[in-house]
């Protein structure tokens, strides 16, 4: 009798897994992983003989397996229970998740620093003000919170190099001074509205101007229960940590004209419609785009070009009051436009390059800055 029940339970279990996996409705896109899920492979003599059908079916099953999130969590929990506090390049600490810092290609960073230096020279010839702000990593700011023994790549030598770039703005001290506040999200690799504000202050001071108080921006919560990229990457889907997304009130920013690379015009740098998605950081600018033109209500003759990664998306609101036009350039998506041409054509008076250290160290687009 025992054997019958034992066999029966496993037979049912197997059949249930199969039936549910095959019959349940399928998603085509994974918000957690930000990628298209595998489609059912095409079946023909050719695809079977070259094995592409078989490997395609394997991918398909992996992407659409029943209770996929539960299984992924279970596996991450199993590894965590055995002591793996770092998974998929993400550390789990009692203060939240932290993105580990590594530079996959040391030469790339050096090339980028050289490009930045050359770029600053070209701009000073053209009488354009230049600043470069490279944001320190969470693992540097909060090195003491890393799991015992975890030695993330030391970022100090990277900043020593960056200090040689004319116009470089160092925010490490400001971050250290405010480190008991939340400067980075606990579940996402980006910085918070406060982190961005502190960097904005440092930027303004570097220009010899005094920044507005943070209260003037009337930060408001636009989303809570934000589970970001680090949460996805660690793969343990338990709501231990969650973030709230704050942003300066749209009222403070005034009337804007925002034109994206597809020539579509909107009135805001915020994309509230994207708050229904998993990645709520997309509220800022609606994600990345190659070139975005913003015109503000100001008339002060200052026109800024912001060359940036996604960290700048939540930094941008603070800049709105200071310029009459802002051109936002993401080199990772830029096709044929030459940055120097754009600067000339659009009468740019200020350039700010804003990246976090990790993406600056790996972005192959930075040398595009100096193309003439």
């Amino acid at each position: 009798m025992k054997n019958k029940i034992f066999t029966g339970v496993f037979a049912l279990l197997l059949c249930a897994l199969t039936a549910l996996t095959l019959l349940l409705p399928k998603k085509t896109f994974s918000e957690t992983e930000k990628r298209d899920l595998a489609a059912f492979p095409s079946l023909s003599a050719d695809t079977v003989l070259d094995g592409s059908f078989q490997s395609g079916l394997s991918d398909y099953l992996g992407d659409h397996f029943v209770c996929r999130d539960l299984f992924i969590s279970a596996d991450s929990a199993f590894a965590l229970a055995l002591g793996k506090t770092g998974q998929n390049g993400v550390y789990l600490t009692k203060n939240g998740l932290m993105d580990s810092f590594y530079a996959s290609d040391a030469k790339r960073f050096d090339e980028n620093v050289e490009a930045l230096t050359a770029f600053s020279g070209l701009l000073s010839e053209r009488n354009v003000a230049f600043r470069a702000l490279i944001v320190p990593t969470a693992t540097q700011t909060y090195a003491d919170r890393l799991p015992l023994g975890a030695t993330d790549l030391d970022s100090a030598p990277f900043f020593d190099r960056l200090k040689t770039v004319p116009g470089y703005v160092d925010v490490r001290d400001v971050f250290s001074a405010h480190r008991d506040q939340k400067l980075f999200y606990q579940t996402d690799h980006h910085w918070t509205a406060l982190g961005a504000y502190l960097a904005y202050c440092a930027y303004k001071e570097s220009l010899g101007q005094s920044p507005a108080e943070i209260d003037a921006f009337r930060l408001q919560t636009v989303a809570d229960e934000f589970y970001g990229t680090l949460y996805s990457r660690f793969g343990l889907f338990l709501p231990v940590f969650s973030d709230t997304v704050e942003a300066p009130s749209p009222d403070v920013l005034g009337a804007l004209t925002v034109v994206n690379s597809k020539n579509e015009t909107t009135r805001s740098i915020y994309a509230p419609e994207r708050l229904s998605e998993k990645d709520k950081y997309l509220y800022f600018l609606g994600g990345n785009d190659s070139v975005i033109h913003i015109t503000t209500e100001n008339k002060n003759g200052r026109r800024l070009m912001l060359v940036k990664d996604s960290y700048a998306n939540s930094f941008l609101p603070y800049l709105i009051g200071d310029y009459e036009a802002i051109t936002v350039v993401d080199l990772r998506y830029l096709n044929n436009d030459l940055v120097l041409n754009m600067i000339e054509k659009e009468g740019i008076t200020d350039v700010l390059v804003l990246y976090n250290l990790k993406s600056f160290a790996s972005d192959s687009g930075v040398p595009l800055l100096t193309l003439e």
Partner: protein
Amino acid sequence: MVFSSLEFLSLFLPAVFLLYFLCPVRFRNGLLLIFSLFFYGWGEPRYLVVMLASILLNYVLGLLLGKAASARGRKAILAVGVVLNLGMLGVFKYGNFVVENVNAVAKTALPALELTLPIGISFFTFQAMSYVIDVYRGKAKVQKNPFSFGLYISLFPQLIAGPIVRYNTVEAEINSRTSDFAGAAKGIRRFVTGLAKKVLLANGMGAVFTSLTSGGTALPAVSAWVAALAFALQIYFDFSGYSDMAIGLGLVFGFHFEENFNYPYVSKSITEFWSRWHISLSTWFKEYVYIPLGGNRKGKLKQVRNILVVWLLTGLWHGAAWNFVLWGLYYGLLLLLEKFVLKKVLDRLPSFVGHVYTLLVVLFGWVLFAFDDVSLIPGFLGSMFGQNGFAAADTLYFVKSNVGFFVLCAAASLPLWKNLGKRWAEKYGDKAWSLAPELLWYVLLFFFSVASLVKGGYNPFIYFRF
């Protein structure tokens, strides 16, 4: 196809179980044959031809042996059979190795053969040869049914990673066998245990080994030892896990395959280690090479020769590269040393000396085994002996992150659990309530194994979507 894949667990397995047990008994061999060929062809459909050729060749050899009357005729058929089987293995497995070495020595430029290794060819060729030799020796009857014979060669549970089932051990069950719930429940337990060993333990240890050695073999000493240990645990759980799965699946269908592993890491000597590691291979070599060469019956000198021949071949069987030859000879020499000198010494020493000695020898053996580029081995051994320092900055975190996993794996390689299970069965086996904890244990093992396979395809894309 491999057992540790979602397509096997969620498509193949339910289909074959369902159809097998719905099917009338007389069609079951045919059904299993079809599924086995499908299983084999899944990975590399073209090599189904090789499999079918091997079946046909050995089936015909069996028939011819049955018909031949004279001793000379039978001997000739056997010789042809051995040559053809080894020839096929030689071309597919050792062809490129021979070409490379001829080119290197004779400075020629023979082109490499455009062949990938047909999966499992070493296993099924040895099985086929055991049939021909058993029939020649009169230890087995000629299998006249080509489908039954095809099933013996291609039977999917042990097809790609053993155990090497000698024909005379399953002859009766090929022709007629029964399956019942006791066998099925036992088989499922065994299969799930093997699956967990492969997926949860071996794959994880493999990841540790790869992450440590992917950047080259210049490692701090701690990392090198951790890597060697990880490889030792990986290969044990991988190989014995596959054998468990094979034996378990066999049980569900009513086959009783011989055991292949018996807790090798508790051995007190290398001789004992090899009576516990990949038993079906050692048995095969003993029965079809060592004894026919004269074994130990023709004087010490011949015995030494026979042992070295067997271990040279054992090494080569594991792969066509010089490190496997080295690895085989390493064990051949050690076994000789034990036989003639060390055994008497070890017997007098406390048993922990034997344990430590065996584990160290085996660990260094795995270093030879792990790098099929022989030129990497000295560097790795140098690392183990501190050539590149004791530890690096990230060693502590790495060790700390993995120590729990190593403890789990080390514990799982001891017979402790099997004995506990036995005592549990003796004490509570007939109690109705004992089903619940047993079921829970195996469902959990299965659940976490599937979880690991599902997570394997989990690939979060960090920054953006192109």
